[in-house]
């Protein structure tokens, strides 16, 4: 489009430019580009309010911060519309007058509220960033822990355990690894084409209300948010590192709910964690019982070959893989 203003001499005809700008704005207004629908849509990006009360603190914070960021600005410029056909102009006029009056009457309060909302939104965002930072640190610690665990597992055991897990689990498309997991197991699963999703033990932001402070229950909180009967397989490694016995029971029950019918759970316990000084609840009979209590069927324990103890006639405790199925309908 050719501009209807002139650029000449030492400068620009600014008044013509501003008139052109005003004309374009008016044209676009008439075409409906700048409507209250757009305003309303921008202020309300999220379609509906969710009940965030049952989420872990980190998730609730994330939700609240996102919500606050998209809706901190309050306005009296709400949309005026009516579905009545005959007296429509009158109704629209009345509503517009009401809106105009509201703007005058509550304008100062609205501006104060907007300033307050913005401050709250900024604060929530800062808090969320802190929570995310803490999670990143926790994840790094978990990686370190997995590395340390790897140092306690010799090459022979890694080979045997990987084979045992893959054979017991069978073909799996998607698997959720809960908590620290040695890298070799993840790599073995990945090599079969399985998509592995890892859930970190988390931080204090992931604590479930009522859980002991020393117990990191992030994966449990995560599992509680997973849609029921949506997970194909779950893998848990070396429980003694991060779970207390009562949490083992809660974990198996939550996993049962999250797994789809016929879904599988695998619990891997390496040799260093299957006997003393590791806690007794890591022993195969206890795990079998916990899986049974949760409702799993076809529970099988695949024990690795025991190794002779150095300088004695006995044998060291061997690692094992426990696998169980959720009932088919």
């Amino acid at each position, binding site marked *: 489009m050719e501009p209807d203003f002139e*650029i000449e001499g030492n*400068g620009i005809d*600014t*008044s013509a430019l*501003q008139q052109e700008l005003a004309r374009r704005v008016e044209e676009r207004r008439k075409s409906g580009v700048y409507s209250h629908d757009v305003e309303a849509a*921008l202020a309300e*990006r999220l379609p509906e309010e969710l009940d965030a009360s049952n989420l872990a603190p980190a998730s609730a914070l994330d939700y609240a911060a996102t919500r606050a*960021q998209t809706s901190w600005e309050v306005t009296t410029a709400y949309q005026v519309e009516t579905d009545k056909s005959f007296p429509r102009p009158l109704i629209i006029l009345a509503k517009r007058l009401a809106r105009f009056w509201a703007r005058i009457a509550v304008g100062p309060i609205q501006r104060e509220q907007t300033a307050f909302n913005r401050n709250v939104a900024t604060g929530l*965002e800062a808090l969320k960033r802190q929570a995310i930072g803490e999670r990143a640190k926790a994840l790094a610690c978990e990686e370190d822990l997995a590395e340390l665990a790897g140092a306690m597992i010799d090459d022979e055991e890694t080979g045997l355990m990987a084979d045992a897990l893959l054979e017991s689990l069978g073909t799996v498309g998607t698997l959720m690894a809960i908590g620290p997991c040695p890298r070799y197991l993840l790599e073995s699963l990945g090599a079969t084409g399985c998509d592995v999703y890892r859930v970190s033990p988390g931080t204090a932001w992931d604590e479930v209300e009522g859980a002991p402070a020393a117990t990191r229950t992030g994966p449990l909180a995560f599992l509680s948010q997973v849609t029921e009967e949506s997970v194909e397989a779950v893998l848990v490694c070396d429980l003694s590192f991060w779970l207390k016995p009562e949490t083992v029971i809660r974990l198996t029950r939550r996993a049962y709910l999250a797994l789809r019918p016929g879904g599988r759970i695998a619990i891997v316990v390496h040799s260093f964690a299957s006997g003393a000084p590791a806690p007794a609840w890591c022993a195969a009979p206890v795990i079998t019982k916990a899986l049974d209590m949760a409702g799993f069927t076809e529970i099988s324990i695949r024990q690795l070959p025991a190794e002779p103890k150095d300088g004695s006639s006995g044998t060291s405790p061997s690692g094992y893989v426990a696998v169980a199925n959720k009932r088919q309908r």
Partner: protein
Amino acid sequence: MMPVRSSPSFHPAFIVPRYGEQVVGGAEDLARRTAEELARRGYPATALTTQALDHHTWRNHYPPGACRINGVEVIRFPAHTCLSDSSLHRVLEAISSGQRVSEADQLRWLEGVVTSPELFEYIHIHGRDYTHLIFLPYLFGTTYFGSAIHPERSYIIPCLHDEPYAHQELIGKMLTGVKSLLFNSEGERGLAARLIGIEDLGPVVGMGFYPSHGDRSAFQDRTAIRGDFVLYAGRREEGKNTPLLIDHFRRFAIENPGMASLVLMGAGEVSIPPDSSQEIIDLGRVTERHKSDGYAAATVFCQPSVNESLSIVLLESWLSGVPALVHGDCEVTREHVRAGGGGLTFSNYPEFAEALLMILEDGELARSMGEAGRRYVTREYNWDSVIKRLLAALEVTQP
């Protein structure tokens, strides 16, 4: 450049609450650059200031006594503040919310934020050693109390904004009680006339600028920002309307995806919504060199603030030939745009969006507006013109 000549009959003192190369602030920058330019031209210039560096705490940062910065003699005195006093905050709150406050409370405000009895004592004893006492900006005790000591030789560069503080009776009395006022722009002079009700309070002097040598490719190398972008440079705070700019641009980016990004430079916190982190890029505080490079690389410069008495960043951006978008409610920047033709004004989102589209879609128009802005700054705000206007305003006989 004008001939350089030392003039013993002309030795001004600039009295400003903070002074130094590290000090952030428009009025402080204006005082320092003007004093340095006078020194460069062979005129003796002195700055009388406090030891403070930042205007949030007014903590004494610099050592007291005399030193020399870029040819200017700087004498620092201890800063005194009562900002920790809650009663002062009640007064500040009342003034800033537009309430009418008593003269006693106005005095409490001017005494409480920052003063320096040692500085006032010095002005009282040595004030007549200087030919002109130039105070700035209007809203501090250093100006209010200092300019009353020798009003017959006191000038104020008020750096006025249309804000509640400027409407206080004591400020009006102060501005009419000195020998003359010196303004940064026609817009500011108009604002002063409106506030005080007197038409001719003093001439426009302003601040000078040297041609810009920003490097577009250096900016692109360092930041990896490509394509068209809108630049904002300056303090990021509500008073400067940066939240409004972010809000407008966020909406513009949704309606016109991929057309441009917004780049922010400067001190202060800025809250960028997570859903706009791709389009709104915060570079934080950058060096003067990097700022010049940013001007050179920008497609549009936006000054959303309505509290400006000169807008140094707007004039700097024009020196790089960048068209500007300014808020229509700011008398000063609106007048710059009207007089120079270097940009467009907006007062609401539709105007912001359409003005930005006009500039982004019409490269020839953008270039012409940028050039017009450059010509305006070069013509009105070059140092030769500014110093000439300053000397004329101070009634100094020029060689």
